[in-house]
């Protein structure tokens, strides 16, 4: 399993760069991952989504779909795409330090 140093900490990541153990995640790491993804600053709205993603992952073992994110966190879908351009579910999962959302077959 590949290792990566994020915000000074060595962590295990999968082939696509998602953290393997979400418990290794810190807020400092979130910012570094976000910057690598082209998001320069993490606003309160970003953090709201990220914390929601982590809570969902803790409860269900998988990250939420965009629909669920929208419905349960109250953040409008349009805004989700503005906060995390290029795919909120995957990008926010990466920044939140959880595994990639399970795709359906």
């Amino acid at each position: 399993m590949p290792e990566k140093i994020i915000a000074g900490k060595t962590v295990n990541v999968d082939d696509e760069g998602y953290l393997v153990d979400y418990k290794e995640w810190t807020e400092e790491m979130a910012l570094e991952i976000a910057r690598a993804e082209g998001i320069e600053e993490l606003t309160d709205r970003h953090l709201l989504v990220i914390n929601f993603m982590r809570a969902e992952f803790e409860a269900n073992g998988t990250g939420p779909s965009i629909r669920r994110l929208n419905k349960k966190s109250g953040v409008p879908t349009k805004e989700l795409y503005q906060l995390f351009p290029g795919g909120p579910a995957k990008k926010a999962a990466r920044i939140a330090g959880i595994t990639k959302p399970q795709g359906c077959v």
Partner: protein
Amino acid sequence: MRNLVILGAGTAGTMMLNKLDSILDKEEWRITIVDQYETHYYQPGFLFIPFGIYTPRDVVNPKQDYFPPGVESIFAQIELIEPEKNQIILSNGRLLPYDYLIIATGTKINPQETEGMAGPEWHKSIFDFYTIEGAKGLSRFLKYWEGGRLVLNITEMPIKCPVAPLEFVFLADWWFTEQGIRDRVEIEFVTPLPGAFTKPRASAVFGDFLGKKNIKLIPDFNIARVDSEQKKIVSWEEQEVPYDLLVTIPTNMGDTVIERSGMGDELNFVPTDPHTLQSKQYENIFVIGDATDLPSSKAGSVAHFQSDILQENFLSAIEGRPLRAKYDGHANCYIESGFGKGILIDFNYDTEPLPGKFPLPGIGPFSLLEETRMNHYGKVMFRWMYWNLLLKGAELPIESEMLMAGKRL
């Protein structure tokens, strides 16, 4: 007397009814099945109606014809499931108490979930092919269409029969070629997925097919709205794709009774144990087919494989034994690829569709992830099997568990 109630008499519900009716002791069990509609549609056939391969008559039969004698069937809307009280309330006010409940209420398309989709152009220049009305409407439209931009769009996952959109564009390519107007039609496949399909190896193979058939793939497109006046679809990131004919796969959601009863997730699918098929919340409720929230395909083959597992676990449950049968996510799909050929995929939760051979006693082998005439015949033959064997709960020569035999890693 104990009561078993089955909600929904589609593919999954009818199969379960026939299977359990043949093994449960009638002195001890009363079985009731409820559905609001009296007509059973062979849904895989909807795909062929727009291209005149099937007529609507080829895909319908009365539901009643597939119910075993002695079973109580009720054609009524279901108002509410009250799992705490072990009862169902029908919209005519009737109460149905149950000891065990099987939910097989399926999934439906919801075009009203997307802004501008279900407006004045619905079934005029915007069509689905997941309903008989949509399939018939498309058939009429295509008869007179002289060409332009055909855009197929998947709104969001999951959808029923995730290969059907690919089959639609493959068949469209063939059909326009037959009509002599292929050079006047641009076909685009617009999907929220990163490629042509959900799983990497199949996605690459199908991506190649799209390319070979001159069908343009637009991945990672998450539709926000349809602008039916300007005739374009617009993504959440303001990417625009213009169309002359939009064939859409709208948001799929479980039945509204699931929502009314507070038993579903955000898409009204019922949280279900992925292996035992028992409801995650209630021990005396099982869920089968499209109504579940499982990460397996929403498809008839899945319902069929699940029915074997559910039969076994149901018998265990009523006798107080542990549920030992485990569904593995097995799906098996024949994909029409046009020009009299087809592709077959066979996969489960853990194993993505792989190339190789698929052995089928007495009939096969079929080729996996490859285009052959034999696979097309498999699909054609299946309609007969569906009406005459599958719905009636008969044994088919195919294992409910996925086998690795013949597959190449």
